[in-house]
């Protein structure tokens, strides 16, 4: 069975400025070359360590360049071996643009990256699809960027980071959602950029000290963005909008929504435009990528979580290739009923991104030619 991988990380092969330079306006390029103290493109960092092997699978290092920078190796280790029909590329180094203090520089970097992405990746393999990176510091510039490249047939998403200055439902961002809706692109968030540059703190209590903690507090941000999207009426205002949360956990969703639904019954009239129980907006409008998949104890409890969370609608598979905590399409999940497995690994993403099956025969014969062997 073919699958769709909704979180794959393409990286630059050499110095970022060398590869991005041709796509940057000369003014910005020369400013970096002249004024950047390090001699490299100034990009802020939260300063945490990462996982083993500099954060990537030990076997994912190509002959030259970092993991994720070599398409042939990505083909061999991901696209070909797991029968990946589509892989959604969410980049890596430039997702930090939303944390930069200079809105114009941030927007220029995002535009340059998008052009680089189209030319150097998306045009190289029909299985690769991309996300329009935007810098939300200037909403008008972000909208212009969506209008500029959002209609490209290989662009299937709009992308920001979890780190932000305002919860993402805030009315400040609504022009972005209007553009997403107009272009039929889901609005995507990927973890990262929290507490970096101009963005607010990783948590309400500031930054945790260690990477292992950083990973576990990510859902705080996603909970904030999710409740904001619901209660600011974003899904009422933009009824065709879809939102996808990448790499920020999934098991927290149902308990969070139980509480939210209960409170909405009592507090509904404070936000009278929220006309349905919050959970219903999520089932219809919001999707989550699977990696890093939670591992309940006992493992069979995962099936309960999937049922509570309406995984047949809300969960889309992701591997996070080539990061060290890669989830194998074969081994990461316990045995699932075939229809549910197909929803998670294929149908949900196909619908989310408005993609067409590349091999039409598949649509009529879903169980034929399965290249996936159930793990465990």
């Amino acid at each position, binding site marked *: 069975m073919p699958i769709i991988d909704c979180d794959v990380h393409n990286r630059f092969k050499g110095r970022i400025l060398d590869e991005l330079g041709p796509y940057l306006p000369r003014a910005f390029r020369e400013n970096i070359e002249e004024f950047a103290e390090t001699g490299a493109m100034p990009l802020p960092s939260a300063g945490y360590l990462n996982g083993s092997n500099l954060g990537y699978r030990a076997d994912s290092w190509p002959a030259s360049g970092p993991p994720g920078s070599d398409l042939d190796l990505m083909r061999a280790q991901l696209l070909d071996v797991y029968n990946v029909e589509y892989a959604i590329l969410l980049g890596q180094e430039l997702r930090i643009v939303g944390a930069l203090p200079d809105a114009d520089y941030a927007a220029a970097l995002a535009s340059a990256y998008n052009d680089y992405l189209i030319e150097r990746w998306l045009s190289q393999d029909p299985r690769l699809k991309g996300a329009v990176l935007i810098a939300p510091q200037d909403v008008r510039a972000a909208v212009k960027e969506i209008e500029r490249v959002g209609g490209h047939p290989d662009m299937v998403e709009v992308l920001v980071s979890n780190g932000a200055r305002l919860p993402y439902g805030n*009315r400040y961002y609504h022009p972005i959602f209007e553009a997403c809706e107009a272009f039929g692109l889901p609005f995507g968030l990927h973890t990262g950029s929290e507490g970096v540059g101009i963005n607010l703190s990783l948590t309400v209590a500031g930054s945790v000290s260690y990477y292992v903690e950083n990973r576990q507090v990510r859902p705080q941000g996603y909970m904030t963005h999710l409740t904001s999207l619901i209660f*600011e*009426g*974003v899904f*009422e*205002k933009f009824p065709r909008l879809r939102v996808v949360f990448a790499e920020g956990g999934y098991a927290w969703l149902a308990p969070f929504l139980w509480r939210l639904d209960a409170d*909405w*019954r*009592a*507090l*509904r*009239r*404070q936000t*009278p*435009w929220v*006309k349905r*129980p919050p959970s219903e907006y999520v089932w219809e409008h919001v999707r989550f990528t699977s990696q890093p998949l939670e591992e309940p104890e006992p493992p069979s409890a995962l099936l309960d979580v999937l049922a509570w969370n309406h995984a047949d609608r809300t969960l889309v598979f992701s591997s996070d290739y080539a990061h060290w905590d890669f989830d194998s399409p074969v081994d990461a999940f316990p045995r699932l009923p075939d229809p549910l497995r197909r929803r998670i690994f294929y149908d949900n993403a196909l619908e989310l991104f408005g993609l067409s099956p590349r091999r039409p025969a598949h649509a009529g014969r879903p169980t034929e030619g399965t290249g996936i062997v159930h793990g465990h």
Partner: protein
Amino acid sequence: LCLGRIKGTILPGAPYEYVYGRDQEIIRCPWHGWEFEIATGRTYFNPHRIRVRTYEVTVEPAVDDVRLETFDVTTEGDLVVLHA
């Protein structure tokens, strides 16, 4: 529930719009503030599935009958009879 305040409510509408309506038609539960339509007992947030039991109520001429449990209510000279 009978201790709840009788109010209207803020009607469902467009984002960031507040329209008050249904004045005196809604009773709010004194505990969690759930809103019930007085005429039907149905909740405002989920009228089809969540409601309180309702009883037929009529206003009848005053009689002196010890079998009736009575409450102080304002009527215009008659009794309110709850048919439970």
